[in-house]
């Protein structure tokens, strides 16, 4: 019986020390980490919608109304320059081969895609993971309308050996463009 109390006390002491030191480290680092993540997010948004200088988050209720119940819509922003709206950015998730591909898509007020960036993915390295490389994502800038892969008669060159990943990325961009149109009232 005495052993139980002793063991419990020792474990408690170790866990308390561990908890306190983790809380200390977390309080020191979380500020830096959040500031950096915000900065990185800004940088990615500036890449997919170069004409905008300010990004205004769209409230979740408005976003879900615009997306019309579509799955995998993460967040959206209106891109502004000198006070007027120049486009919209939508962050979406789309099913790839190894899991969800999260991407950021920017569109201007003419309905032209301004750029696409893959934020996170878990596709096969060397194959599907190439969706995050420039030769693939670079194709989306300047495209308009509903996109599809070249072998389906579309305008996007898929990655050879990674049709599912390529299709997933294209589907994500189409979804994002539709939502962006709805947000911009087009």
């Amino acid at each position, binding site marked *: 019986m005495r052993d139980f109390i002793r*063991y419990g006390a*020792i474990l408690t002491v170790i866990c308390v020390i561990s908890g306190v030191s983790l809380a200390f*480290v977390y309080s020191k*680092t979380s500020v*830096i*980490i959040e500031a950096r993540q915000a900065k990185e997010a800004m940088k990615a948004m500036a890449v997919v919608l170069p004409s905008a200088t300010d990004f205004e988050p769209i409230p979740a209720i408005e976003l879900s109304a615009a997306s019309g119940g579509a799955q995998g819509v993460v967040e959206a922003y209106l891109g502004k320059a000198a006070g007027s709206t120049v486009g919209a950015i939508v962050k979406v998730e789309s099913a790839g081969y190894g899991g969800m591909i999260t991407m950021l898509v920017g569109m201007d007020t003419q309905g032209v895609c301004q750029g696409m960036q893959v934020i996170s993915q878990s596709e*096969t390295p*060397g194959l599907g993971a190439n969706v995050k490389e420039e030769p693939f994502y670079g194709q989306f800038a300047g495209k308009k309308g509903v996109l599809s892969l070249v072998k389906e008669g579309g305008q996007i060159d898929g990655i050879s050996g990674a049709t599912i990943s390529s299709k997933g990325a294209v589907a994500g961009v189409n979804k994002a463009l539709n939502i962006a149109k709805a947000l911009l009232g087009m």
Partner: protein
Amino acid sequence: MSAFKEFKKGLWAESPTFAMLIGMCPAMISSTAVSNAVGMGLAATFVLVFSNLFISALRNMIPDKIRIPCFIVVIATFVTIVDLSMAAYLPDLHRILGVFVPLIVVNCIILARAEAFAYKNGVVDSIADGLGMGLGFTLAVIILAIIREPIATGKILYAKDFGFEGIKLIPAKFAAALVDKPVGGFMTLGFVLASINGITSRSKKAKQASAACAAKEV
């Protein structure tokens, strides 16, 4: 001197990956590319040295019956501290090692060394042991990666975040993506182990033969 011996044994003779065959999961996942192998190896070495240091320093306070939960708390705390500090102060390295850092908790080399060595030995020896085992793990995953990376992708030393484009060894169309998967990893490990065992048993035989010869002459 004994600390040096503890350091040296982990590098090859008792290599965690090639001799003890523990910590296979992180070895398979990080040996797909040389850059990943170096990163994961060094991160694991760092955690291993500090977990050995703390556990060996606390070994007289930790009762035998609850040692495992105590080890896990110490290791998990330490990995979380490393993860958070890396994310805050070394963001570039953290982006590359992202998934690997939390995975260090489940690297059984760390718990195995805590249980088999740090809990029974002094602080200096335990640090030497952690350093040796960690570098032994690093060396082993680099060897596996040197074989796997070119076969799977056609190039070696590809590390985009550091601006290395990689050196092309074989045309990409001959690359075998299978080697990138765990199956291919275990196959590579099998071939490497067979080669190592072949070489060591041959040199052992040669030594025995020469010893027998010398005995006859005498």
